[in-house]
C-alpha cells in the first residue's frame, strides 16, 4: 500500500481486460453489467471501499465489448485509472431508476443483443431491459469466471504479496497464543498486524478458534477462551490490492497427548494433496487424496481458486461432478486445505496457497508449522 489511493498497475489492468474481452467474445456477450466487487476490480483496476459480506446486485461497472469502454460507478476519480475518463464515471444513486437512465445513455447500450450480468435480482431483472431494450439478459459470471481462473504473471506477483501480509498476521497471532486468551483477542491481534502491514481489508475475520475434541468440525469453546491442551486453528486472510491471500495453521497450547500422531497424519495427507496439484490433473484427485490418506473429507471445500475473491476450481465433497469435470492448469492458484481430526485430541487444520506451474505445484505459503 502507498500513501495515495492508486489504480492498479497498467500491465496488471491490461492483462486482465484482455482476458475479460476475449471471454466476452467467446460467450457472445456485447455488454457485461457487473456488480460483484471482484469482477469490477478485475476489469476496472480501481480500488473500491471494502464492505464485509455479500452485496445485493447492482450495476457497478459496464463493459462494452465493441469499444472496450468501461463505465464505472464512482462519484470521484481517486484511484480510477486514466483510461476510464470522467465522462464514464457515474455517481452513487439510491433510486435505481436514475442508475438505469445512466446505463441507457451509454454508447452501445441501445443496440446490444446479449447482455451478461454477474448476478441478478428480481428488481434489476425488470429494470435492465429499459437500459438495454434490444438485448437478451444472460449469465455473465461464467465468462468472468473463465477469465479469472488463469492468472497473468502480474496477478501472481499480487497474490504473492497478499499471501505475505496474511502470513505476517498469522505469525503475530500465533505469538500471542497462551492459556486464557480469547479467540476474539487472537483475531484482534491478527487483524491489527495485517493492518499495520498496510492492509485493513480482511478476506476472513473468522481468524482463530479452539478445535473440538468431541466433534469433527464444530466449535469447541462456549466462552471463546483458549485453555492448556487445546489445538487452536488460525486462518489468516487479506484482500491486498483486491487479491485474496490466505494461510491456515494449527498450534497446540502446551503439552498435548496425541498431538504428534495427529500432525503426522496431516503431513501424510498434505503429501498426497500436494502430489495431486499437477497441471492437467482432474480436480477430483484432491478429493481422492483424502480417501487415499484414509482421512474423512471435511465439510468445507478442500480447494478453491485464489484471485480476486473466489475462482474456479471449487473442490468440495458436495460438488463431485463439478470436480470431476475440472482440470488443473498452469496459472491457477489454489488455496488447498488439509484437515484431520482425532476424537479426544482435536483437529489440525492447515491451508496452503499453491501455484500450478507447467512443472508441478509451487507452494506460495511459507509459515512455520508446529513440529512434534
Amino acid at each position, binding site marked *: 500500500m502507498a500513501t495515495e489511493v492508486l489504480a492498479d498497475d497498467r500491465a496488471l489492468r491490461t492483462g486482465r481486460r484482455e482476458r475479460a474481452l476475449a471471454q466476452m467474445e467467446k460467450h457472445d456477450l456485447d455488454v457485461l453489467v457487473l456488480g460483484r466487487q471482484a469482477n469490477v476490480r478485475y476489469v476496472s483496476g480501481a480500488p473500491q471501499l471494502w464492505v464485509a459480506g455479500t452485496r445485493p446486485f447492482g450495476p457497478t461497472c459496464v463493459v462494452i465489448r465493441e469499444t472496450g469502454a468501461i463505465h464505472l460507478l464512482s462519484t470521484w476519480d481517486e484511484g480510477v485509472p486514466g483510461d476510464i475518463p470522467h465522462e464514464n464515471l457515474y455517481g452513487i444513486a439510491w433510486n435505481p431508476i436514475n442508475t438505469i437512465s445512466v446505463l441507457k445513455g451509454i454508447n452501445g447500450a441501445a443496440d446490444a443483443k446479449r447482455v451478461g450480468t454477474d448476478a441478478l435480482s428480481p428488481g434489476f431483472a425488470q429494470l435492465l431491459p429499459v437500459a438495454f431494450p434490444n438485448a437478451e439478459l444472460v449469465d455473465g459470471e461464467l465468462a468472468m469466471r473463465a477469465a479469472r481462473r488463469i492468472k497473468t504473471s502480474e496477478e501472481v506477483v499480487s497474490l504473492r504479496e497478499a499471501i505475505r501480509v496474511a502470513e505476517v498476521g498469522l505469525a503475530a497471532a500465533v505469538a500471542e497464543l497462551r492459556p486464557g486468551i480469547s479467540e476474539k483477542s487472537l483475531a484482534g491481534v491478527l487483524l*491489527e498486524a495485517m493492518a499495520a502491514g*498496510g492492509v485493513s481489508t480482511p*478476506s476472513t475475520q473468522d481468524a482463530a478458534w479452539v478445535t473440538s475434541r468431541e466433534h469433527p468440525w464444530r466449535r469447541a469453546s462456549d466462552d471463546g477462551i483458549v485453555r492448556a491442551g487445546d489445538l487452536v486453528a488460525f486462518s489468516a486472510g487479506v484482500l491486498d490490492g483486491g487479491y485474496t491471500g490466505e494461510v491456515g495453521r494449527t498450534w497446540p497450547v502446551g503439552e498435548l497427548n496425541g498431538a504428534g500422531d495427529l500432525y503426522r497424519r496431516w503431513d501424510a495427507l498434505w503429501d498426497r494433496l500436494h502430489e495431486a496439484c499437477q497441471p492437467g490433473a482432474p480436480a477430483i484427485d484432491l478429493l481422492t487424496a483424502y480417501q487415499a490418506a484414509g482421512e474423512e473429507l471435511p465439510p468445507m471445500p478442500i480447494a478453491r481458486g485464489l484471485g480476486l475473491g473466489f475462482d474456479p476450481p471449487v473442490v468440495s465433497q458436495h460438488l463431485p461432478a*463439478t470436480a470431476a469435470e475440472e482440470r488443473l492448469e498452469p496459472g491457477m492458484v489454489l488455496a488447498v486445505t488439509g484437515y484431520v481430526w482425532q476424537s479426544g485430541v482435536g483437529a489440525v487444520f492447515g491451508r496452503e496457497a499453491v501455484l500450478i506451474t507447467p512443472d508441478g505445484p509451487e507452494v506460495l505459503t511459507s509459515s512455520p508449522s508446529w513440529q512434534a
Partner: protein
Amino acid sequence: MTSPTSFLAEPSSALDIPETPDLDRMRRETGARLRSAMADRGVDALILLGNNSVVYATGVSWPLGDAGLSYVERPVAVVLADDPHPHLFLPFREGAASESGLPADHLHGPVYLEFDEGVENFARVLLDLIPAAALIAVDELTGAMRRAQDRLFRSGRPADAAQIVGAAKLIKTPDELACMRTACRITDTAMVDVQAALAPGIRQIDLSASFMRRAFELGAMASMLEPIWQVMPKYKADGVWTTHGDLALPLLTTERELAAGDVLWTDVSITYQGYCSDFGRTWIVGQDPTPRQQAQFHKWREILTAVLDVTQAGTTIAELGRTATKANGGARPWLPHFYLGHSIGVNAAETPMIGTDLGDEFDENFVLEPGMVMVLEPVVWEEGTGGYRSEEIVVITEEGWIPLTNYPYHPYGD
C-alpha cells in the same frame, strides 16, 4: 420502499431495551415480522442468499468475510409463511456458534449456488420444502440459478425478497436494539484508545490497526467496512474531482502520515451478534480547533439539535430534512451523493435514507414509527475549515427518541 409492514404482535416498548439481548426471543420476533411482511405481499416462501438477509431471517451470525469468498461459501435461508422456523443451509463454521436455536430438521448442509451441480442439489431439497404452487420471492439469482429457474421457481417468476426483508427490518425489536447498543458501546470504547493515539506522524492505517485490535478484544464479531480516516481538504477546489463538484466521501485509508492540523472525518462500523454500530466524528490532529472550526461544530450541533427536537413517532423524514436545511440557513447540510441520515440494523445503512434522489415524495410518505432507528449525520462546510461531520444514532419513541451512541466531541467540545 413501501410503507412499513403491519405486525402480528405489538412489540415491547422501545424504551425497554434489555441489557443483554435474548437471542431466541429476537429470532422469534424478527421471524414473525418477516412472515407478516410476506403475508402483506401474498408471498409463501422466501429464498435468501444475501448475508445480511440470512442474518436477519435466521438469527445466526458469523464474522462476515470478503464478498468474493462469501459468494461461494455462504449460508442460505428458506423461510416459509406457515413455519415459525426458517430452514438454514450452512457451510462449515459459519453460524456454528448460534445454530442451536433451530430444530435439527431445519438445519441442512451447505449448498453451492454458484454451480449448476449445487443448484440441482438445492432444487431437489426445495421439492420437499416448497409446494409447487407457492409464490416464491428471492433476493439474488446466481447465473446457475437463472439456468435452473423452472426447477427452483415452479409457480413462475419469483418476486423480489429485498422488498419484503426491507419492510420487516424497518422496526427493530428490543433485543435487536440491545445488540446494536452493545455494538455501539464496543465501538465507542475502542475509539477512546484510537483517538488517544492520534498525533502528528501516525499513519492512517495505524489508526485502523489499533481500532481492529481493540474492537475485537472488546467483543466485536466483525468489522463491517474498512475504517475511514479521511483527511479533508481546506477548500473544495483542493479536493479530488467528483461527478457533482462537491466533496468526496468516503476516501480510502492509506499509509499516509497524518500532519498537525489535519482535519479527519472518521467512519467505522462493527457488528455484535450480526447487528451494526456506526461511528462518525471529526478530529483534528495535534491541535485545538480554530475559532472558525469551532463555529463549524456549533453549527453542526445547532442542526442536530433542531432535527432531534422534531424527531418522534409520526414525523415524516421530509420534516427532518426540512428542519436540518432551515437550521443550516437554507442549504442542505449533507453531501449530494448521501443523505441527512439513514437507518441501521444488520446492514450498516438501511432504509430510509433522508434527502436522496429517491425524491421528496418518498420522504413525505415515510412516517417514523416507534422502534425505528436513525443515524443522523449532518455535514457542515465552510471554505478554509475542513468542515465538520459527526454521527449520532437514535431510537424513535412515541414521545421523541433515545440515543444509542455516547462519545465526546473532543477536541471541539464535550
